[in-house]
């Protein structure tokens, strides 16, 4: 649709549409019927006249309806290429985008920019997205613990208010059913406004994912190898980790992306020394997810990522803030940092990551908790190296076996509480994961792997998963 078409349609619209409004047509008919009824039961010549007129009106109405349908079709076709209209599917603009070269064929030269212009104006303002994971875990030593789980089902929505401002939202249901008697959770994973300030800088405000590691911001099942997310980016970096605040994003022409901001942080008062949750993921057990988050102490964060060479990503992040939130006299700072790299030459996909977290002044916090199974660690860390290779592909199908080696420790050290009271450091767990991702079509993946644990050998397990993302 050329701009010329646009104008002529808009100009014509007011002239035609008012006389075609269904409500007006209905009024005319109601009036006609009312007049008919007012004439009483006795047939008169006037009534015959009216009946004839009614027939005439009905015929005209049919014609008008046809005209209206044509107009609506035209309008829908135009809406597919203009912004600010109702939600459309992501596919619509793709096909619409291909239409302009053809429809612009008879337009005045130069015709090519029309495509670009139509596209600039033509993206749908609201786009739905989603991803899901359905997993089966079967510990081979303890088959009674085998489990099938709709791990997560996520609906995402993005709405563009203007070329520079959009909303990004994601709602997630975990474990299939969420109720007082069921294990599921319903959560808002992201809800923020992003506003582009210029070519380089944008600003986000709301609930957003913290830029940390390789997975946190790219956590869809199609984006990683293995049925389960790796342990380092689950136990040490509490993926999917989000906070509420303000974030500036700078995308530079040298391939560097800089993200920095101020946000809510952790609440160390949530630490449950009687539960093992803190051993599974120290930060996962005290994150707040903006659910009435204690916000006296805010955190600062920053991340640098370089993607200046095709297939290469090198980066790091840091997040730091007080976590006692004024609830206890102690001030305890939680800091988490990571360094990561990924290289995807040809069919290879190689990555490595190190993450380390520290919690300060834990002695004062742990003192009243002594005797409980899980005290607050002063340090925890982990790293992994992973390699995948696409061995086979045909059309959309692709098979990529992978191997991952990871070591992590969620209680690497504890602050000194005196002899006999200081908990010993936990043993460092080593996990080997070997398996394959099978891409059915881009966006749909079937995964299978086996995981060997060096400490917790009873956990050795076979995993099978189905995931999708769009």
């Amino acid at each position, binding site marked *: 649709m050329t701009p010329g078409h646009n104008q002529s349609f808009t100009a014509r619209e007011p002239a035609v549409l008012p006389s075609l409004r269904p409500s007006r047509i209905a009024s005319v008919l109601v009036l006609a019927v009312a007049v008919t009824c007012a004439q009483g039961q006795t047939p008169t010549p006037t009534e015959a006249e009216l009946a004839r007129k009614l027939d005439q009106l009905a015929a005209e109405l049919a014609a008008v309806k046809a005209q209206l349908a044509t107009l609506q079709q035209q309008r829908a076709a135009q809406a597919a290429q203009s912004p600010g209209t109702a939600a459309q599917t*992501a596919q619509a*603009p*793709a*096909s619409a*985008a*291909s*239409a302009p*070269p*053809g429809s*612009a*064929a008879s337009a005045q*030269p*130069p*015709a*090519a*920019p*029309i*495509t*670009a212009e139509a*596209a*600039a104006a*033509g*993206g749908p303002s609201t*786009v739905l*997205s989603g991803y899901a994971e359905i997993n089966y875990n079967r510990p081979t030593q303890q088959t009674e613990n085998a489990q099938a789980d709709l791990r997560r089902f996520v609906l995402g929505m*993005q709405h*563009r208010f203007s*070329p*520079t401002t959009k909303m*990004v939202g994601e709602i997630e249901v975990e474990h299939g059913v969420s109720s007082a008697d069921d294990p599921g959770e319903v959560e808002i994973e992201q809800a923020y406004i*992003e506003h*582009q*300030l*210029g*070519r380089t*800088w*944008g*600003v986000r405000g709301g609930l957003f994912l913290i830029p940390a590691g*390789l997975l946190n911001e*790219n956590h869809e099942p*199609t984006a990683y190898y293995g049925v389960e997310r790796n342990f380092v980016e689950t136990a040490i970096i509490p993926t999917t980790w989000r906070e509420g605040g303000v974030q500036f*994003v700078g*995308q530079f*022409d040298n*391939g560097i*992306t800089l993200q920095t901001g101020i946000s809510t942080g952790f609440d160390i008062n949530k630490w449950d020394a009687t539960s093992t949750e803190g051993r599974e993921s120290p930060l996962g057990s005290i994150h707040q997810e903006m659910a009435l988050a204690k916000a006296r102490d805010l955190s600062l964060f920053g991340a640098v990522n370089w*993607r*200046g*060479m*095709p*297939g290469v*990503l090198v980066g790091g992040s840091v997040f730091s803030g007080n976590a006692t939130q004024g609830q206890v006299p102690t001030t305890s700072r939680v800091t988490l940092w990571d360094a990561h790299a*990924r290289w*995807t030459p*040809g*069919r290879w996909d190689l990555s490595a990551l190190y993450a380390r977290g520290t919690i300060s002044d834990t002695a004062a916090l742990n003192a009243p908790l002594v005797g409980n199974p899980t005290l607050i660690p002063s340090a925890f860390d982990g790293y992994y190296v992973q390699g995948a290779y*696409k061995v086979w*592909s045909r059309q959309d199908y*692709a098979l990529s076996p992978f191997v991952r080696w990871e070591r992590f420790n969620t209680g690497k050290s504890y602050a000194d509480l005196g002899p006999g009271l200081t908990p010993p450091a936990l043993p460092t767990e080593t996990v080997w994961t070997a398996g394959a991702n099978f891409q059915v079509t*881009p966006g749909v993946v079937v995964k299978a792997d086996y995981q060997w644990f060096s400490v917790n050998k009873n956990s050795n397990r076979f995993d099978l998963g189905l995931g999708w993302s769009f």
Partner: protein
Amino acid sequence: MSGFTPASNSVVVTLTTALALAPTAAFAVDYLSADEAAKLMFPQADRFEPRTLAFDAEQLQRLQAAGVSPRSARWQVRVAQRDGATLGYVVVDDVIGKFELITYAVGIGSDGAVRQVEVLSYRESHGHEIRLPAWRRQFVGKDASAPLRVGEDIANISGATLSCSHVTEGIKRIVTVIELARHAGSLA
């Protein structure tokens, strides 16, 4: 406001200043116009002749057989010319990244090989690195016989797989369309 410390005041001032100084481009994500891209690709051209390629059913089937979804039977091409001689072709197209349209231009030499790729508009929150020369240079010299697939001859950008794949598919489609048109004599 009386509770504000000098430190927090200075933060507010800094942020306000940063916002005030930020450029306010209407389309912050538009980098080039199609005209500019065409001139960049063929600086020696004295004319860009707009041409519409219309494919018949049989040709569309051949595109399909070549593993390319034709998407449209009509394509708008700018033929770069100098003194009446054809230097090459420029095609402007859009693909969906993850959520949004990416507008890009492909310059193809008269031999059918990619000469240059330019990203005209990019609106996604991630993956703006496809704009970087290093990523775009991967396409230079490739013609319809190249695989043109991410994870084969085109390297991915971590975190922007969909943008990379869709632009790569788009370029493959354009290269194949031009190849078909050249062989059919529609670009002579």
